[in-house]
Each structure stands twice: as structure tokens, then as C-alpha cells.
């Protein structure tokens, strides 16, 4: 990470809540040219990423983009073919015990021992973490995530939402400094989602770093201070200043087909709209005047150009769609 990136990081405000706590210059999480290859399949290719204290990084991409593999490499569950992952500067794969101290995680689907009760599952982790708790503490922890009544039921009888709540209790078991969350909102009802979101925002304000992978873009949009877009194993885009609204151009010209061809040839992401209009994704603010200039020079008769704020969904689609690709696939 260059100095300008760090300066930007220090300067920005999170979307949710107040100012960041004092940010450290050492990244909490650092992925350094991480690659994972399964035989002939390249699952993750040369991914580098630094997250700092208090960051909430939305980790976005379609299914099969390599997000889960990357998260698993961060947690030491998958060995990278090349590159390294460090948490607080400690290599996860050479010193997992030290590196993973203070890391909480929800990994994709929440898996528990189905033949144990919720309380017994929690107790197992507490024991591994060397934490001694009284039965009332244990019940309190389960009450806190809304599982007080189900504490003595076997997990095999839990609903998806209940499992997710238990996963949350486990992830937060010891006030983590880094949270790795893969689809944490799965199965949660709206009230629980809101509660969870508030909790995450409060944690980030207290300095917890969060890497959040989710397909619920509205949740990511409300929480994230940074975005990373992944596709086909590679990082295809980042937004490190999510506080600044991202733009898109709505353009209408006389010769629609010609503009479509022009955009396609130059690999601009766009979506056709009503009334012969196109919505063209703009990654950088300075792209707007440049694009208009280019269209004029190319001889297009511009009927209308309107810059609008880009939603995360539009950004996502802009990053993920190839020209002409059907957006329903992403």
C-alpha cells in the first residue's frame, strides 16, 4: 500500500457512524500476492489486499469468484499455492495459533456438531479458547444472540437463522480484533439483520476490522467503508473511498447502435435503459468530462447526458459485467 492510499484511509469517514479510532499504519490483515491453484483450476490469482483498524471492507463478487477460497486462506484453512497472508504482521500459515488469536469468523454456511446442543457447541469453543465461564455466563451469551430458549436443544433441530445466530455468538466469543464474515446475514430476519448491522458498525467504530462477503448488497452498502470486487479469482476493482458518491452517466444519442458498439469496443460497462438511453459506469469522477469529450469527437449527436450517483448494485454490475453479458448471471 502506498502512502497516498494510507492518507486516503486516514482521511475518510465510514458511511455508518462517527470517526475512526486512531488508525495504525500496520495493516491488521495483509494479503500479499496470494494465489491458489487446484490442479488445472486457478481459484485465486495474485490477490493483494491490506485492511486497517476499523475498516469494514465489502468483499463482493459472483459465485465462484474465489471469495470463499480467499477467506479460507485468510483463516488458514486453505494453503495458498503462492503468496502469504498475515494478520497483525504474523503469517497465518506458518504461525496460525498466534496469527488467528483475536480473529472471529463466520464461514459460509454455519456448521456445528448437530448432536450437541447450542450450549455444548458454545462450550466446546470456550474450552478451546481457554475461557472459563459459569453456566449463567453461558446462558447470557446465548440470550444475547436470541438463543436463550434453544440453548439445550440439539443443533440438528435449529433453523438456518438460529444456526446463524449461534455462528455469530461463536464469532464474537472473545471480542475479536478482526472479523471475517462470509454471508453472515443468511437466514436472519429483518430485525436480526438490523441488530447485527448496528453491532458490526459499533464494533468497527471501536476499532474492529471487518471483512464482509455478502450477496445482500444493500447491507454491504450500509456498512462498508471500502469495497473489493472479485471475479474469476482476481480483484477486478476496489473502492477505497466509499464515502464519496460514485457516479454513472445516463446518456442518450441519436445513433444507439453505434454508441453500443463504441462502448463495447472500449470495454466500458454499460446497461441499456429505456428510451434508447444507456447507463455507463464511471469509475473515476474525471471520467465524466473525458467520456463526453470522446463522444463529441467520435461524432455522436448527444441528446442528453446526466450524471447520477451510482448505487452499489450499479457499481457491482458495472464491475462484473462484460459488454453484452447478461446481468442476471452475476
Amino acid at each position, binding site marked *: 500500500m502506498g502512502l497516498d492510499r494510507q492518507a486516503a484511509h486516514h482521511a475518510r469517514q465510514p458511511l455508518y457512524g462517527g470517526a475512526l479510532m486512531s488508525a495504525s499504519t500496520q495493516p491488521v490483515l495483509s494479503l500479499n500476492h496470494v494465489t491458489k491453484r487446484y490442479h488445472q483450476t486457478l481459484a485465486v490469482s495474485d490477490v493483494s489486499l491490506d485492511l486497517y483498524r476499523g475498516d469494514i471492507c465489502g468483499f463482493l463478487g459472483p459465485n465462484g469468484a474465489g471469495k470463499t477460497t480467499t477467506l*479460507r486462506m485468510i*483463516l*488458514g*484453512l*486453505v*494453503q495458498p499455492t503462492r503468496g502469504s497472508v498475515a494478520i497483525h504482521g504474523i503469517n497465518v500459515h506458518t504461525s*496460525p*495459533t*498466534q*496469527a*488467528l*488469536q*483475536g*480473529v472471529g*469468523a463466520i*464461514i459460509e*454456511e454455519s*456448521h*456445528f*456438531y*448437530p*448432536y*450437541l446442543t447450542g450450549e*455444548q457447541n458454545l462450550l*466446546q*469453543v470456550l*474450552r*478451546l*479458547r*481457554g*475461557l472459563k465461564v459459569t453456566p449463567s455466563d453461558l446462558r447470557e451469551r446465548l440470550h444475547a444472540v436470541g438463543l436463550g430458549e434453544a440453548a439445550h436443544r440439539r443443533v440438528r433441530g435449529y433453523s438456518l437463522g438460529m444456526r446463524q445466530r449461534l455462528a455469530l455468538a*461463536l464469532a464474537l466469543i*472473545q*471480542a475479536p*480484533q478482526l472479523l471475517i464474515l462470509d454471508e453472515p446475514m443468511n437466514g436472519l430476519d429483518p430485525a436480526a439483520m438490523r441488530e447485527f448491522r448496528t453491532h458490526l458498525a459499533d464494533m468497527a467504530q*471501536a*476499532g474492529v476490522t471487518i471483512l464482509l462477503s455478502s450477496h445482500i448488497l444493500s447491507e454491504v452498502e450500509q456498512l462498508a467503508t471500502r469495497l473489493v470486487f472479485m471475479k474469476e479469482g482476481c480483484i477486478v476493482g476496489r473502492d477505497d473511498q466509499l464515502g464519496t458518491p460514485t457516479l454513472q452517466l445516463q446518456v442518450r444519442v441519436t445513433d444507439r447502435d453505434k454508441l453500443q458498439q463504441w462502448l463495447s469496443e472500449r470495454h466500458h460497462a454499460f446497461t441499456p435503459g429505456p428510451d434508447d438511453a444507456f447507463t455507463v459506469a464511471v469509475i473515476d469522477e474525471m471520467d465524466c468530462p473525458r467520456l463526453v469529450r470522446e463522444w463529441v469527437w467520435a461524432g455522436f449527436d448527444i441528446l442528453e447526458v446526466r450524471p447520477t450517483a451510482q448505487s452499489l448494485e450499479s457499481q457491482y454490475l458495472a464491475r462484473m459485467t462484460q459488454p453484452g453479458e447478461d446481468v442476471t448471471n452475476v
Partner: protein
Amino acid sequence: MSKPANPPTFRAVFRNEMEKIWIKRGKALIIALIILIAGVSLVSAHTYHQTYQPAAENAQNNQQAAAQMRQQIAQTQRALQSVPQGKKKALQQQLAQQQQALQQIQQSNGGTVNERLQVRSLQNSLSTIPTQRGPLLEQLALARYRVSHGLLSYNPAADSGMRLVGLVFGGDTLVLFALMAVVIASDTVSAELHSGTWGILLLHAPRRRQVYLAKWAAALLILWGFMLAAAVGIFAFSSVLMRVGSTLEPHVVGMVTTLLPQNFGPSLVVPAQQVFHIMPQWSYDLLALVLAMLTLGGFVTLLVGLSVVTRSTVGALIIGVLVLLSGFFAALAGPASLLDPAVSFPLISDWTGTLAMQDNVRALTLGTGLTVTLIWAAAALAVGLWRVSRTDV
């Protein structure tokens, strides 16, 4: 922010593993234990009551008949002294018939072996049936022991709780415990990989080798606990059904069972055919139990290794059962049988080197069998530890 978490101790991981096995399999293990204890004890008691008790009653009747016959003989002998010469011939004939009848009564002993006659008979058999040399030598050693200790008559059907423990752990019944080992150990790692809990576990206990060793130790301890409970249960229940038996009842052991320094080299693999150690029943029971625990410990280690290498419970289960079965046919493979990890299973009941002699593989002894099983176990442990640290989740 709370203080950093302590790395998990082996004790914590091990305790978790024990708890998981117990909660998952506890009921099934208790039911299996009850069935095993009741089954083995009842079958033995049935045989005991079918053979030994009538035999004992017969023996008692015979003793009474022999006593009566001896009285009659004494009367006839007295009569012989007082009767005139002309009548003596008839009495002498009667005396000869009575003595013959007494001999017949003594021979028909209701299943009880006359040990003096047994020694003579076995000595004759040694020269006439050379292929059975091992078992014959064992019986001979036992018969001589009994004669020298004044145990002149012995009933082989006279089972006892004490004797049954040795028979169960030093016999083919061991296969039942081996099947329990398959059930306990073959899903040690694979079940967690399949259910997705392996990732959660490693997140909180990242030292994979520590987790693997804890799982292995837990599976081992549960099985050994099961075996000890079975030993105590079988002894207690069968003692109630039959009798406790004598702790000093002789038991003969004729094989090399230890890796003593002088046994290294060729002597290690040669059955000690001519030397038989006679040990009291209690120490034989203990030795059989220890050897069975050692053999099954090796088998559990192999199964835990299979569970991580195949990443499949069904795969580990099938391979485990096939390996177990292969042990009982190992002798058919000649010297190649010494590559079979389960070769020690049939050998544990073969103290006399019968298999080695029948199959003409001199190395097929309990000592080498155990060594082979333990080498496989060590290899499985090493491969398992290596593989578990490289398994992507």
C-alpha cells in the same frame, strides 16, 4: 478489547473430542457393551451347564459306583481266603470281572481327564502326529504341570469367569472389539470434513497436528475403556453364571511375545516350540488383555489415518473391515502375510505356532505379528499427521 486468547491446550482439545464421541456414541457403546457381556457370558454358561454339570454328576456317580465296586472286590478277596480250594476258581473269575468293571468305571470318568494317562497318550501322539506338534506340546506341558501339582484329574469343560476373560481377549472374539474400533475410529476426521465442522474446529484450534493427536487419543481411550469395561463385565457376569474359577489355574504360553534382546535376529521369528511358559490364569488374562489392547490400538491408529487420507467415512470403514478380514486369511499368502497390518489378529490366539507350522512360514508368530501391526500403526500415524496439516478445508 479483551486480552488475546490463549492457544488451546492439548487437554482442552482432547476433552472436547472425548465429549463429542461420548455424546455421539455413548448410548450405542453402552448397548454394545451389555450385549457383548451378556452374549459371551450366556453362551459360555450354556456350554458349561450342558457339558460340565452332567459330566460332574457322572463323575460323582462313577465315584460312588467305584467305591461300591471296591467294597465288593474287598469282600471277594476276603472270601477267597476262607473258601475251599475247589470253589476258589469261581471266586477268582468273579474277582477278575469286578476288577475289570472297576477299571471301566475309572476310565469312564464323565469328561474328567486322568492327567497321568493324558501325559502318556500325548507322548505317543507326538511321534504319530508330527503336524500337530505345537498344540500337542502345549497340552503335554499343561498335563505335566497338573501332574506335578497334584491335579490328577481335570475337566476341560470346567469354565469359569476367570478363564473366560482370557479366552475372549486371547481368542477370535477379539474380532468383535475390532469391529467396535472400526465404528469408533473410521469417521474421526472424515465426518468433520463432511459436515463442515472441521473448519470451525481449526479456527479455534489451529494446530492441526494437535487436533489430530487429540482425536486419535480420544478414539484410543474410548476403545480401551470399552475393552476394560467388557473384561470386568464378562468376569463378573460369567462368574455369577458359572463360577469365579481359580486365579492360579494353569495356562500355557509357548510363543515369543516380547522383543527381548536375545530375540532379535533370526531367533525373533522362530516359534519357541520347545519352551512353554506356564502362567497362572490371572496373569494370562492380563497378558491377553494387554496384547489385545495393543493390537487394537494399532488398528485404531490405522483407521484414524485412513479417515484423514481417504477423507471418507465409508471409504475408511470399508478398507478397515477388509483389512480386518484379510488378517484371518493372511496365512494363505505365505511370507507375504507379514505385510498384512491385521496379521496379529489370528496370531493372538495362536500361542503355539500352529499357523507358522501349518503354513510353513516360520516368521508367523505373535511377536512378529504384533511388530507388523505396530509398524503399520506408526506409519499411519506419521502419514495422518503429515496429511492433516496439508488438507485444505
